[in-house]
């Protein structure tokens, strides 16, 4: 088990009103699992994603990462966990616009104090893997959406994390490039046996996961298991 959520609540203060975004979530994410978190907007899936990604701390309840409660970690420890164990893939790609593709992929390695030549080698290797070997010196603005998302996936993979967290990874892509990106993610899951957690409201995408958690109004509505063979198949 990689991540365990125990009765997790997240409550936002909106003026005088307290708005609960998550209401007592219990969930375990196993090692090497391809999990989808599905739900309509406002269902609390982004909040859940932020909590799993150690970007935020729960208001109540526990999030255990490899057995440790993340609430006990300081900011720089959380940063270290994010940097070493979690790779983020965002809907908006979220590349640094002033850095080239290569520099973007090298960045998480540099935050982990990896030597420049080693970081460079690793970044080039991954960019080649995702088919961007000839685009490494391009700025994000010179790349198409699909290419940018592949750079973002490369960046997420650079530090060889245990978990890939993808937040609507195809939300800004057309269906063809979207499918390619999903294939990429499921390949990563299968080949490197990394845990992939994908947040989406796209029910076509959801089908690619092994397990689907349906969220509604901050609560888990149901959990759907799919046989291993079916999950991660090419569409």
């Amino acid at each position, binding site marked *: 088990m990689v991540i365990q959520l125990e009765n997790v609540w997240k409550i936002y203060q909106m003026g005088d009103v307290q708005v609960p975004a998550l209401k007592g979530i219990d969930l375990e994410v196993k090692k090497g699992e391809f999990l989808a978190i599905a739900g309509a907007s406002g269902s609390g899936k982004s909040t859940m994603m*932020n909590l799993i*990604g150690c*970007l*935020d701390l729960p208001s109540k309840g526990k999030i255990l990462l490899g057995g440790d409660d993340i609430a006990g970690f300081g*900011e*720089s420890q959380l*940063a*270290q966990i*994010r*940097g*070493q164990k979690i*790779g*983020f893939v*965002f809907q908006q790609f*979220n*590349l*640094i*616009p*002033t*850095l080239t593709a290569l520099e973007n992929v090298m*960045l*998480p390695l*540099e*935050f*982990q*104090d990896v030597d*420049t030549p080693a970081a460079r080698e690793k970044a080039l290797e991954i960019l080649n893997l995702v088919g961007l070997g000839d685009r490494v010196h391009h700025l994000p603005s010179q790349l198409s959406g699909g290419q940018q998302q592949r750079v973002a996936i490369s*960046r*997420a993979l650079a*530090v060889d994390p245990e978990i890939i967290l993808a937040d609507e990874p195809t939300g800004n892509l057309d269906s063809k490039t979207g499918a390619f990106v999903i294939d990429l993610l499921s390949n990563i899951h299968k080949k490197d046996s990394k845990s992939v957690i994908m947040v989406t409201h796209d029910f076509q995408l959801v089908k690619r996961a092994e397990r689907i958690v349906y969220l509604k109004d901050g609560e888990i509505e149901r959990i759907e298991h799919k046989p291993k063979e079916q999950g991660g198949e090419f569409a």
Partner: protein
Amino acid sequence: MKINKSLKLAVNIIVHSKLRTWLTIIGIVIGIAAVVAIVSIGEGMQQNIESRLGGLGADIITISPGGGRASVGFRGGHGGGMPGSTATSAAAENLTKKDVLVLQSVGGVEFIQGIVSGNGQMYYLGEKATVSVEGIDPLVWKEMTTSELESGRFLGPSDYNVVIVGGRIAKDTFKQPLTVNRMITIEEKAFKVVGILKESGGFGGDDSKIIMPIKAARDTLEDVGSDEFDSITLKVANTDDVDQIMEEADKKLMISRHLTEKEKDFRISSSQSVQETMSDITQTMTLFLGAIAAVSLLVGAVGIANTMFTSVLEKTKEIGIMKSIGAKNSDIMMIFLLNSAIVGLVGGLLGICLGTGISSLLPFLGMRLMGMGREGMTTVVTPMLLIYALLISVGIGMVAGVIPAYRASKLKPVDALRYE
């Protein structure tokens, strides 16, 4: 994250916001340039004073009559260096031969001479001028003076109605330059010029004086008693002993003249003490003007802080991204701190160049605008000044960047990521 990586990212931010960064840099450039230029004027004045007062000789102590307990005064030089100085001494009791004898007993004194001085009407080829006349002991004077002969000779012990003429009087006072062997008239007495002094350019020197044997001066100038002197100068054997000898001379004179501290009617000064006073004054002035210039630096610093806040705001999303991929607070802090330090550094470097340029132009401008004399003003840019200016500019950059950088580092990753 290693510092060179942070530096790279900091430079990246600067490179991608050129216009704003340059505008910010200009603020620092102006401030540093102003400080460098102004301090260089001060340094120039300082050096000017040092070189000019050097003409007095660091080993000379002057005792002159006059009230006031201040032992340090501008009335340095060989007593009565400036016209009209006899007027001040007239009120006080003059120095006498007895004082010379007392001072002779002070240890460490190599030479001693009494001097009479005053102003006299001088005629030369039908032209008239008021000159400062100094009667000296011919045997001792040439050992004590720092003036050099341009032509002719020093005075000898048997000379009577001969004079040595200061360089400025010889060259500039009369239409026809004075030369050796010319005859001049001072207070209706005829004198032959036997020597012309080189111009020293300083204010303590003998440029504007007529030097004559003390016997002749007593006969020529009014109001000088036969046993009295307008000043006594001592030359010490070792310049390190100046302060100590001054103290001893002061004590002995007080005793022999039966004076208490309150009744003290003479002054003891050395060129060193004069120099120190002058240095103090120029330093204070430089500090004052520098402080005014520093105000513009302060404005520059506020400019940096402002730009940094804008930059942090603009980069909020990127800060969120960096945090989500493992940037620690200290990494973010370092990137933005380096960013503002670089702004300070570049501003400092350019400011130094501009300031040095201005300071090298100032002597020309100064002469025109302020009607400064031939010596004009000099400006000196020392390496220390440049190093300080650079350190200050980088320091200002970092101080101005601390709060924005701290804010950036404290941004919550979730909020920063959501920022558009």
